[in-house]
């Protein structure tokens, strides 16, 4: 049986842990070729690599800051040389930073906006050259987290997320005529990342509000992502998909 992403060339930013890692694994299971980036966590990146190998996938792995334009160029350039192009870009790298305005300093703002907004712009621009030339490709932007957090939706996070939505909409419109689709996936509280750190009463609140009465798993969100980036998804672009258990 062949996978739903057989031979598809995928790049996931921030793929060393959490949802990013789960996306890499899900893509590999469906037969994709997988590359991922990470910033600091070498041990986690190594772990992700080993897990991908166990699935029979030899990943490409790049260390760097998504907000660094040279890094974005280098990654896409290396993949183009190695694979001859790129079919899927997932802008997943994010920052977990929970802070009220009173404590929100300029470096916090810059880090958040750079990672969650400038990063997707840089990687999308680098990847789109090849996609437009090939008249094929898809970009998936991952909305970092929902607003369930210790102090509701920190301003820099909300701003970055709103910006990413704008970027998704604008790019979808702009590159649709070249056959490239751009979508956004905004999962609810999951068993990875913030969902593992939040205080129990927060998780309880989430469960109480969600129609399905539970938090999600990275694995089920990754399954959704597989569909979104696959060729089965032929008519959806500029869309926001929110697997959140029905908030």
């Amino acid at each position, binding site marked *: 049986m062949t996978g739903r992403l057989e031979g598809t060339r995928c790049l996931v930013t921030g793929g060393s*842990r*959490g949802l990013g890692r789960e996306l890499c694994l899900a893509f590999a299971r469906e037969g994709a070729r997988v590359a991922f980036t990470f910033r*600091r*966590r070498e041990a986690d990146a190594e772990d992700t690599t080993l897990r991908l190998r166990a699935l029979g996938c030899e990943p490409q792995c790049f260390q760097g800051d998504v907000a660094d334009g040279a890094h974005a160029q280098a990654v896409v350039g290396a993949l183009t040389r190695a694979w001859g192009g790129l079919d899927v870009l997932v802008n997943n790298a994010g*920052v*977990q*930073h*929970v*802070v*009220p*305005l*009173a*404590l929100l300093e300029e470096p916090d703002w810059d880090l958040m906006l750079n990672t969650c907004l400038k990063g997707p712009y840089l990687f999308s621009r680098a990847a789109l050259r090849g996609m437009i030339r090939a008249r094929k490709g898809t970009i998936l932007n991952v909305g970092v987290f929902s607003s369930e957090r*210790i*102090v509701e939706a920190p301003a820099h996070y909300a701003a970055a997320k709103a910006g990413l939505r704008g970027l998704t909409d604008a790019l979808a419109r702009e590159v649709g005529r070249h056959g490239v689709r751009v979508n956004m996936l905004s999962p609810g509280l999951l068993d*990875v*990342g913030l969902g*593992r*750190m*939040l*205080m*129990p*009463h927060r*998780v309880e*609140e989430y469960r109480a509000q969600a129609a399905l009465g539970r938090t999600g798993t990275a694995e089920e969100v990754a399954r959704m992502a597989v569909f979104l980036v696959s060729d089965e998804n032929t008519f959806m672009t500029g869309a926001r998909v929110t697997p959140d258990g029905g908030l």
Partner: protein
Amino acid sequence: MGALLHPTTSLCRTCKRALPALVEAREDRSVWLSKSCPEHGAQSVRLSTDAAWYAATRAVKPVASAPRRTPRPVHFGCPFDCGACAQHGQKVRLPVVTITSACNLDCPICYVYNKNDGTWHMDVAAFRRILQHLKDDLGEVDIVNFTGGEPFLHPEFMTFLEVARDAGVHRVTICSNGLFLAKNEPLVKRLGELGARVALSFDTFDPQTDVVLQGSRLVEAKLRALDLTEKYNVDVTLIPVMTKGMNDHEVGAILRMAMERPNVRHVELHTITYTGQGGTHFDPSRSGRISMVEVLDRIAETTHGWLTREDFVSSPCAHPLCYQIAYLLLDPDGGPPVPFTRFMPREALYACLAERLYLEPSRALEDALQDAMDRLWVSDEPEAERTLKILRQLLGALFPRDRVITREEALRAAERASKAVYVHSHMDEDTFDVERLAQCCDSNCAEDGTTIPVCAYNVLYKEKEAEFMAAPRSWGERSGDVKLRRLAVLA
């Protein structure tokens, strides 16, 4: 005669018969409880040195939270129907389980009745039944406190811990004098692995005082126990019993040590009670008696004001005169700790304590902290900036940017960022006040499902149990057929 504050029911200090009593404020602002036994005559005791504080504190209404199950009928009237009866105002928030009568000390101030010859140990099956009763009553059992005697002397002590853990009890605390721990490093290590907490009695740094209060020199052993618990990451609550003229001047030093030692989470200051096998005969003049507000003021003096009476609130889960609680935020840069009341209104702290005797992360706490951060941010006071910086570091520890931590690690980081100071005022026969008793959330739990407020247990009920008393007193002897509720209504 002074101004009547309120009537209540108390006990005769000799025969423990229930007596109508009056609480009055005198000209010098002190508060006295007076009663008269037909057999043993008039008795009175000073409850407080500050009538205004007493009245204002007593006016705080606890959150109504009656027990779900009340196995005992209202028959004799409070305090003779414990179990609990339908008049009781609070469910159990701190279940206390007495697992042994054995003790390796014979403290002059001991307020419980224990006998060391012919020791009694609870069997594990009985504890299982207690847990089941608690689960039925409370839904989930958040915390269990083992006491004795010296609980570590129970030959099956570890099994009790494991049973509690397997039943999903989040916090297990063990009252101890620390001697056994000081000599038993592997035990401390195991406690650390099981996440158990120790409530360590710690009255003084002064060897002389030690001999008077505890009958021997224990300071070194207690400090050794503290070192070991620190080594193995065992959280500790220090329990100093405050006695006027003996160790009340040391409270600042004890609090400072508590702030400095990372594994000391809480200090629970008790006021001395003259009951139990030691307390009844210790210091016949009872000159060491100290009231809650005096302890609060002694704290302010000996800490040079980094902690004052305004920093304390009553517990909403108990009678307001039973617990005073202050929370302090630690300064990672070494500055003095900052009481929560310096950055949030006392009402907000009070509200955050509505569910438990201690703070847990909750929506109310989050909102209070968010308000605090905004207020500190817009303030021009120099302390505001320091406090804001501490809160920023705390958030950084809860949501580190360079790694993912588990919820347990986050909870621990939150806990380690602050400390609590409690003043807990137990009652003896002299100070016994059924108004307070009926709002007690601190109960001794028995195998048959009864839960008895610890003050009633220590003063009245424990005597009933042959395990603890060589010659148990007959029960009906004191209360007889007298309907004591009627006695409380004064002519």
